[in-house]
């Protein structure tokens, strides 16, 4: 009678551990001891569980209560253990059938009234529970639809403790949960046809989307850099179901699901403000390590407007995720790795006043201040950006034209075709996008046509391009070849790629 065991899930980043919640009630002075490295929110569980149990009309044992969360060495945080503790506590008093405790898992914070409140990170927790062989899991009603994205495990959403007790004791199913009205569309509401003119930036956008190349837009204020960047999700192929689940899981851990529909197959678009801190950019926090903008942009786009205005450390913190596709954050409570494979899009003014374009067109900045301004984008970061283009102000003719630009749908079709060509080519490789081809493969099986290679070799000899730049140009050339339907990049593909990468001379 005096012992009951049930299950819960503790999250470490996106990975979950199945936690056994054991409650023992023994003779002795009334007391409540919580073992297993709880954090502050979890330690307060005692008061919430007690009030919730009593206010749900159940008995609180005036005895010595020991709650153990095992494995005991794993630090646990958050309020999601309230519900399993309450259930095990009732089970230990013999008030609930024990078979439904040990094989099920429970997640939920309790209010003093006994309501089951919503939590962050329910989706990855349910995924973990399934991995550990749990067949049925009870979650807060508000997290039901999120949890139900996981197949192969029975998910029950509950509103309050009473419903859980009735279910376990009498088999009364909790009321059905109605789907909330979703304001979100799987399709991006932004369309490329809204952008007037801008042929070169449009081309750059399309090539980046094909190869997953990082992109830099430089141009005066008001020319449409942001407008262009915001429309990238509309020309990217839709996310696969697995990717969509991964993206939803990250947003769930960040407590960010209100801004995104569940399992949306639209690639995420994240645009942190340029005053953002590195912790917000790559993830951080002292008790709970939350994913940052780089992880929220996983499988999507990370757009940083006014990039030179960013603190230098913040931009440079992007280098690890750009390199490895993941971020590892270490704090005193441990290390956590979040996935962070995104397409980086930077936008910058060419100079502090914004009007410099290589020619003097009313720019009032000194040569020195122009140089200093763009130097804030560090060399190593710039080097990782494959395509850099200047966004000119649209001409009066372009603005006056009533003709709409090409629509996102048309562009996306071309991107999808080009990507499928690349996928076929990389069928036997470990990478999927042109931007991911490793250097040794570029030197062997993925060389451009002879004329193209010659062009690059000459530039290399004249030291107009670095070895890394050489590889970057080749990668972009592959994307251009895919969009043109060439089997191997020819001289014109390489030349265009060279222009897209190295065309901005004043970047230095």
């Amino acid at each position, binding site marked *: 009678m005096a012992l009951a065991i049930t299950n819960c899930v503790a999250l470490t980043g996106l990975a979950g551990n199945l936690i056994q919640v054991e409650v023992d009630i023994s*003779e*002795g*002075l*009334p007391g409540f001891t919580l073992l297993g490295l709880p954090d502050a929110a979890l330690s307060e569980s005692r008061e919430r569980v007690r009030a919730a149990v009593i206010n749900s009309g159940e008995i609180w044992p*005036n005895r*010595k209560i020991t709650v153990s969360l095992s494995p005991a060495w794993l630090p646990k945080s958050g309020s999601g253990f309230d519900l399993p503790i309450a259930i095990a506590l009732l089970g230990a008093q013999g008030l609930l059938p024990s078979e439904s405790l040990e094989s099920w898992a429970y997640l939920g914070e309790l209010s003093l009234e006994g309501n089951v409140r919503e939590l962050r990170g329910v989706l990855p927790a349910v995924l973990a529970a399934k991995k550990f062989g749990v067949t049925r899991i009870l979650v807060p009603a508000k997290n039901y639809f999120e949890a139900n994205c996981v197949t192969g495990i029975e998910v029950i959403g509950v509103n309050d403790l009473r419903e859980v007790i009735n279910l376990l004791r009498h088999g009364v199913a909790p009321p059905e949960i109605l789907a909330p009205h979703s304001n979100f569309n799987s399709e991006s509401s932004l369309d490329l046809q809204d952008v007037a003119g801008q042929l070169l930036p449009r081309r750059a956008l399309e090539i980046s989307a094909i190869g997953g190349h990082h992109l830099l837009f430089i141009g005066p204020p008001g020319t449409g850099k942001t407008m262009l960047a915001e429309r990238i999700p509309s020309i990217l192929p839709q996310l696969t179901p697995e990717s969509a689940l991964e993206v939803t899981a990250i947003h769930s851990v960040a407590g960010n699901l209100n801004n995104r529909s569940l399992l949306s197959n639209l690639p995420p678009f994240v645009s942190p403000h340029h005053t953002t801190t590195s912790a917000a950019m790559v993830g951080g926090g002292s008790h709970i390590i939350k994913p940052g903008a780089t992880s929220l942009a996983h499988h999507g786009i990370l757009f940083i407007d006014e990039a030179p205005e960013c603190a230098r450390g913040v931009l440079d913190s992007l280098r690890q995720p750009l390199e490895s596709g993941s971020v590892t954050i270490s704090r005193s409570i441990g290390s956590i790795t979040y996935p962070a494979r995104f397409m980086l899009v930077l936008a910058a003014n060419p100079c502090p006043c914004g009007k410099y374009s290589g020619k003097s067109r009313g720019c009032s900045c000194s040569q020195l201040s122009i140089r200093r301004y763009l130097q804030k984008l560090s060399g190593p970061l710039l080097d990782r950006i494959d395509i850099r283009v200047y966004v000119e102000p649209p001409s009066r003719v372009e603005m006056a034209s009533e003709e709409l630009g090409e629509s996102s749908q048309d562009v996306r079709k071309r991107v999808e075709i080009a990507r499928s060509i690349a996928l076929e080519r990389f069928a036997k490789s470990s990478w999927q996008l042109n931007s991911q081809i490793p250097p040794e493969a570029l030197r062997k099986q993925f060389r451009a046509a002879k004329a193209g290679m010659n062009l690059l070799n000459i530039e290399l000899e004249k030291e107009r391009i670095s070895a890394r730049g050489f590889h970057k140009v080749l990668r972009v050339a592959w994307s251009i070849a895919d969009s043109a339907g060439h089997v191997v990049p020819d001289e014109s593909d390489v030349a265009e790629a060279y222009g897209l990468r190295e065309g901005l001379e004043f970047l230095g």
Partner: protein
Amino acid sequence: MGSKQKLGARGEEVVARYLVERKYEILDRNWRIKGGELDLVAISEFGVIAFAEVKTRSSLTYGHPLEAITRDKAYRLQRLALAWLAVHHKWGFEYRIDCAAVIVKDGIKFEIDYRAAVL
């Protein structure tokens, strides 16, 4: 004696009777020194000395009586018990500290919740 004290004294009396019924011999009552008081000291038929702290309540409105025993109070009982053993030359005896909750129902019925060896 105020009504609270009277209630307490009656509670202790009821627990003393409860122990005697279970073949305990009462050795001392309300043993008081500087630092506190021991409500009841009794010895079992097997020679174990029980120090019983009695908490009496006329209702459960303010929670269970035993919740009033905090950790500090428990440590004080432990010290008092050792002091009693020393004063009465009972070193070497096996001893334990018990708590008893007495709840008065309808003003006449006494309900005892006796918990042995709580510390």
